[in-house]
């Protein structure tokens, strides 16, 4: 019950209090939240959603994916294509085609760009495509019982291959510059503070609903089976469960959430390019979960916030030492805090209880 209160509290703060602080508190006040903060917090919320998805597959089911960057980018690119199409003729070259196509001297839109003028179509792609890729990939991988380190490496290889593909100019997604210079979404200007705030609030709600969904799943019988698969897959199989179905379900769901996160990320950050698919990014997603605490949903959210907060601080204050910090984080967390912050937190709580009872 306490957990629910905590989460509802967070939701209230993020969707009601912060916007109010922006709108009603005068700018001179210390409590005023400036406009530029909203896309920034929105970005963190997207990361938190990724961490949530990662936690479902890794923390609860024990499958380490190093390919979530791909699903994230797929959602991002789909949204980016819609945003590119809605620039219309206001690009640098005043052409109906996206600028980079004009630059590459393409005469007409490639077939896979058709339909992205339409928001509903884009939405469907965002919701279906990452999950579909994950389903296909997972079906073959789980069917041949690829697991553990092998699975991690294969997903990394997939990420690497797709990154190379998207870096090519000929692939038709803007090469290494990616998609950028967006102007508006659904007719609203992306520069407008109210659009920014709406996107942010939508992100917060999506995150909240995903959290509720995730919590429902992990507390259900399905969640129990998933945890059992993590701890002793053979025994689950011997008990008569077909583990492939369970793994495939949670793997596809995780990719689905990741795709949505990517789609929400792009309009707030204003760019999507293939570097999002670098293998390093996908591994970083794992460390968000590890820092926050595997196997606890709120831990994943906290971990994403902490690591990305640290990243923002380091890249400004001491850019040379960010990689040291990140590297040390990987080592220290795996060596000393396998349960992450959530583990430390519960340990502290249980100590207090022990003192009280004694």
């Amino acid at each position: 019950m306490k957990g629910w209160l905590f989460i509802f509290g967070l939701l209230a703060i993020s969707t009601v209090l912060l916007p109010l602080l922006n709108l009603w508190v005068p700018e001179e006040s210390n409590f005023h939240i400036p406009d530029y903060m909203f896309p920034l917090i929105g970005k963190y919320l997207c990361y938190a959603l990724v961490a949530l998805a990662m936690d479902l597959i890794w923390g609860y089911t024990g499958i380490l994916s190093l390919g979530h960057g791909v699903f994230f980018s797929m959602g991002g690119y789909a949204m980016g294509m819609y945003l590119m199409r809605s620039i219309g003729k206001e690009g640098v070259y005043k052409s109906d085609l996206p600028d980079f196509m004009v630059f590459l001297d393409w005469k007409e839109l490639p077939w896979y760009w058709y339909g992205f003028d339409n928001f509903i179509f884009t939405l469907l792609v965002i919701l279906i495509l990452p999950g579909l890729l994950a389903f296909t990939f997972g079906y073959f991988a789980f069917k041949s019982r690829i697991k553990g380190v092998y699975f991690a490496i294969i997903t990394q290889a997939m990420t690497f291959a797709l990154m190379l593909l998207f870096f090519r100019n000929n692939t038709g997604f803007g090469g290494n510059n990616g998609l950028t210079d967006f102007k508006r979404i659904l007719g609203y200007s992306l520069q407008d503070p109210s659009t920014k705030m709406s996107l942010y609030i939508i992100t917060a709600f999506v995150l909240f609903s995903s959290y509720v969904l995730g919590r429902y799943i992990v507390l259900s019988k399905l969640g129990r089976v998933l945890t059992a698969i993590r701890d002793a897959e053979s025994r689950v199989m011997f008990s008569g469960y077909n583990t492939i179905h369970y793994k495939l379900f949670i793997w596809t769901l995780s990719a689905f959430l990741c795709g949505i996160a990517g789609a929400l990320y792009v309009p707030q950050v204003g760019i999507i390019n293939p570097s999002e698919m670098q293998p390093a990014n996908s591994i970083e997603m794992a460390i968000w979960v590890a820092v926050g605490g595997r196997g606890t949903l709120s831990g994943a959210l906290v971990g994403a916030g902490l690591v990305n907060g640290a990243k923002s601080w380091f890249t400004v204050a001491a850019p040379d030492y960010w990689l040291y910090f990140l590297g040390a984080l990987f080592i220290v967390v795996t060596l000393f805090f396998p349960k992450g912050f959530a583990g430390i937190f519960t340990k502290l709580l249980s100590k207090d209880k022990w003192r009280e009872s004694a």
Partner: protein
Amino acid sequence: MKKIICLIEPRKRGFYETEHKIFAPFFGVFVFLIISLFSFSFVAANDLEQSLKDLGNKSRSKIKKAIKNLGSQGNTAALPALEALKDNRLRVSEDGAIIILDESGEKGQDALTKEQVDLKSLSLRKPRINNSVRRILSTTIGTLQLKSSNPVIRLTAAKQLLKKSSSGLVELIEMALAEETNDEIREIFSLVLAKEGLNSDDKQKRLESLKTIREFGNINFKSLLENLLRKNEKNEFLESDPKIREGAEKALSSIEKRQFFINQFANLFYGLSLGSILLLAALGLAITFGLMGVINMAHGEMLMIGAYSTYVVQNIFKEFFPHLFEWYLIASIPVAFVVSAIIGILLERGILRHLYGRPLETLLATWGISLILIQSVRLIFGAQNVEVANPSFLSGGISIFYGVVLPYNRISIILFVIFVVISVWALLQKTSLGLQVRAVTQNREMASCMGISTHKIDMYTFGLGSGIAGLGGLALSQIGNVGPELGQLYIVDSFMVVVTGGVGKIAGTVTGAMGLGVLNKFLEPAAGAVLGKIIILVLIIILIQKRPQGLFAPKGRVVEN
């Protein structure tokens, strides 16, 4: 055309044909011939001197004559002066001395005495030459080069002839061909002759030329032959003789066959070269993965450390033993191995030891290690690539076919890899340490029960694996850039090798590495580098469907977990 012919052997015939406009210096030539009968060497030297001097003459006809004289003397000592004249680097001082400027135009050398000349004290004049002089000049230079005793100069000259039109030089080339002993130069001479023969009016000669071309299958003739087979607008062949066309077709198909063969050969070679690099990168990874079941994400950084060790050794040699610089690479071999091995052992003892039984956590921890190693190298050596020089015995290469050069550095890497693989194989199969490593790989608990200290074995094996990666870095430094991200480029590929080949068997890793390397190079020209890579990844994923443990999985049943 005739004019040029007579330039080659002016003494024999037609000397005056080219000079009919100019006052013929009968007397000079006559005296020259007489004197040459008496004392050839003296005259040759003397005549060289005179002709060189005449290069700076104010009269263009005198210059022409001097050039022709130099050509007829066949003395290659005149080459520098002639080349300088062609490149506008020849100067004449007031007292008539001929001075050759160097490329920068700041230093000068007397053409006769070969002494350095102080340019500032002299007032210099440029000899005036025009296109007709230049034409004679190039031919003469070519002639002299063909007569040079240095095969490299002859080869370049011969290649020049092949590129440009060489009509008129036929007799000269025939003579040179008769005297030539170097097979490569002979081939080019024959081809030059064939090219000329193709243009002649004699049908027999043309057919013979086509035969020669067919024999050698040189790609340079492709367009020439295609021209022979071209049709005009009325769909008639430009070449009316069907026999010639048939010959040309045959020659063309032989060229294409040969080119296909050469391409496949080059692909194979470069594939093996890439494969051997992958093998060095993946061998250590496969051993440690087989032994401990962990993937070392910092393995790529061991490559990088090996490459940077090579760089440091190179700089130490540059600084302290410049006379031994050529040998720095040999000295780097133990250094690269030991440095990477020590860092590997430190990692194993300090971090990985505590993570046994948790392979996914190990993967993340080693990723953290790799970040720290990359950033450390970046802070120490800078983010830019550093330069590691090839020792001179590794630069250059063997040319096996016309146009295909196998670089020495790649050949030596292949040999080096063979050496490393044999050593590792011997270590694992023939020593008691190897026996223990294999025992732990097969069954850790049982090996431990038999009194093998598994911790020690882990440490040694990790050191060995990292050391081999260090050697891989050394090899990479000879063919590519050395930068902090070096390891990242190869790590995914070496994972793929391990996944394909399976663990625990060297043969699997060798097959995986060579297979991926060769496949990569054969797919690259057909599908492009990126698509080729993607195709390979898809193939690997399909392969894993069939053989989840890799190609060379150990036989038997193993209880999971």
